[in-house]
């Protein structure tokens, strides 16, 4: 990620990006059936650490699927992958976008919004092959919410220029710089998608750029921590199935983060169990899948998947979010100033 402490801005951009998506074609990218490095893939073999585990180390990003919708647009039916022609179109749009990003100034007379300039966002390096992030069920749609889940309060996410700002508690856990949660920390958004994997004998640790999470995953088969110990990021346990790292995570606080961009949307419950699979397909690509099983929130389990890639020069930056959360200060003090002005105006009328 490039720009620390611009959470609300990020949110605005995310909102804009979503509109763009709905309105037209997206920059997609792709989780191809074939590896990013297909030519090398023929000769590639999974490297091992000196102690014999599959080596997944490096800094990875889900950037290539930025803009791919969670739920598949109806016109694609059960089709998960774009056709070659559709991909070529997306490649063209990607090029156009990169040209737009080079524009650093706003043309005279153009209305300046509250969002950042286009070049602030990370972009897909290649078009995402997928029509949706949901890969199972086959229709690419998130299962229905339970009746109770529909009643859960959704805090103010990003993209609202006139949020309710009575208290910090009106805002999302991301805007409060607490956490985006497990899926929110890896699902592709406009920036901050970095995942640095460091392995040791007995552990895999995933350092996530946002919000400086470190998921320490023990591989020794120990049981989950007591259900009385609950957290935003849950309690992960890992194991190897062949060359695939399988991570099961439980013990969530619940009613905090959701699955929509930046950990927003309907919050999932304390019954959530994530099962993630990391399978390295080549030197620069991991196939990532996460099965979402939360009977209190969703009618059935479902699976989201997308590629993680290594890109030249890409690295995690320190996302010191809370330390510089001027947006929270400004949102609250702005709302209080507006109230004061309204009260003064009302007093004058009398």
């Amino acid at each position, binding site marked *: 990620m490039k720009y620390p402490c611009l959470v609300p801005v990020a949110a605005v951009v995310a909102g804009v990006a979503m509109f763009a998506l709905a309105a037209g074609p997206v920059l997609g990218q792709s989780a191809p059936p074939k590896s990013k490095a297909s030519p090398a893939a023929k000769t590639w073999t999974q490297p091992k650490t*000196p102690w014999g585990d599959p080596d997944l180390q490096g800094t990875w990003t889900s950037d290539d699927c930025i803009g791919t919708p969670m739920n598949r647009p109806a016109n694609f039916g059960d089709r998960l992958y774009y056709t070659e022609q559709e991909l070529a179109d997306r490649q063209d749009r990607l090029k156009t976008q990169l040209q737009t990003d080079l524009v650093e100034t706003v043309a005279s007379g153009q209305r300046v919004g509250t969002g950042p300039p286009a070049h602030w966002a990370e972009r897909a390096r290649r078009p995402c092959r997928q029509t949706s992030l949901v890969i199972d069920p086959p229709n690419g749609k998130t299962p229905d919410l339970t009746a109770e889940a529909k009643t859960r309060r959704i805090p103010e996410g990003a993209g609202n220029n006139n949020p309710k700002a009575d208290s910090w*508690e009106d805002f999302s856990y991301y805007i409060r710089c607490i956490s985006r949660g497990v899926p929110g920390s890896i699902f592709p958004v406009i920036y901050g998608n970095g995942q640095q994997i460091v392995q040791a004998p007995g552990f895999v*640790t995933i350092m996530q750029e946002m919000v400086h999470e470190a998921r320490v995953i023990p591989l020794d088969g120990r049981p989950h921590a007591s259900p009385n110990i609950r957290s935003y990021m849950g309690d992960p346990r890992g194991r190897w199935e062949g060359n695939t790292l399988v991570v099961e995570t439980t013990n969530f606080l619940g009613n905090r983060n959701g699955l929509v961009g930046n950990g927003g949307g309907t919050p999932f419950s304390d019954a959530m169990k994530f099962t993630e699979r990391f399978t390295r397909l080549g030197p620069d690509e991991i196939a990532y899948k996460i099965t979402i099983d939360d009977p209190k929130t969703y009618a059935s389990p479902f699976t989201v998947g997308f590629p993680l890639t290594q890109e030249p020069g890409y690295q995690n930056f320190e996302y010191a979010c809370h330390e510089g959360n001027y947006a929270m200060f400004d949102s609250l003090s702005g709302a209080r100033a507006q109230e004061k002005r309204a009260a003064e105006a009302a007093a004058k009328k009398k």
Partner: protein
Amino acid sequence: MHYPGRARILLFAAFAVLFVVTPSNGQTKARPTSQVPRMPDGKPNFTGLWQAMGTANWDIRDHSSQPGPFFQLGAIGAMPAGQGIVEGGEIPYTPAASAQQKENFKNRMKLDPEVKCYMPGIPRANYMPFPFQITQSQRDIAFAYEFATSNRVVNMGKFKAGPVDTWMGTSNGHWEGDTLVVDVTGLNGNSWFDRSGNFQTDTTHIVERFTLSDADHINYEATIEDKEIYTRPWKISTVLYRRKEKNVQLNEFKCVEYVEELIYGDLKKK
């Protein structure tokens, strides 16, 4: 002490035996280095959960016990006495910096980054009263600290300068024998060493040395230099202990929620 002749000979013999029995150690180290866990390439393996003991997070200098700033907290909020971790006892502040530290201490409830759940920086993260996990690969070494989910990755490859100053700094490491040496630059200068207002700046340079004395103890040293506020480089040293409880693990301490009332409380709708 006076030893009769015969006893003196026995004593000499006993020392000789010690030397012969532990020839590889050379000196009189009590523990053979074979107890140190090692990576396949022979380097010491620091992987595990570690925590400092002692009271350095209250004050890295020698200190008596004191009342806390809030009487409501009673004994819980009071500061325990402790032996400092500063070699020689004193931090060689310039006169201006010494005055600044005293001012910091007076206003510590407003200024200490720990109060506000800010990332603790280096070296403080290592001796806060919270554990941290080291994940050591054949290349880089990750440190995940429980307090405020702060962390850093020590780059063991070619030296890389940090792209921008940060709370946790930029860590470049190398091996000197069995000692992991970590060079820390790119600190943003907002971190304190403790709750007593001892401070650093954005020109502070820290060199840390981690040495396993046996399987469960790390001798931790850090040399601190900064011409802006110290008259000479100075050094801290303490011990990090391996957490040994069954299935002990790093837990989550996301303290932002616990400080929002403190930071934004006066901006809440009445």
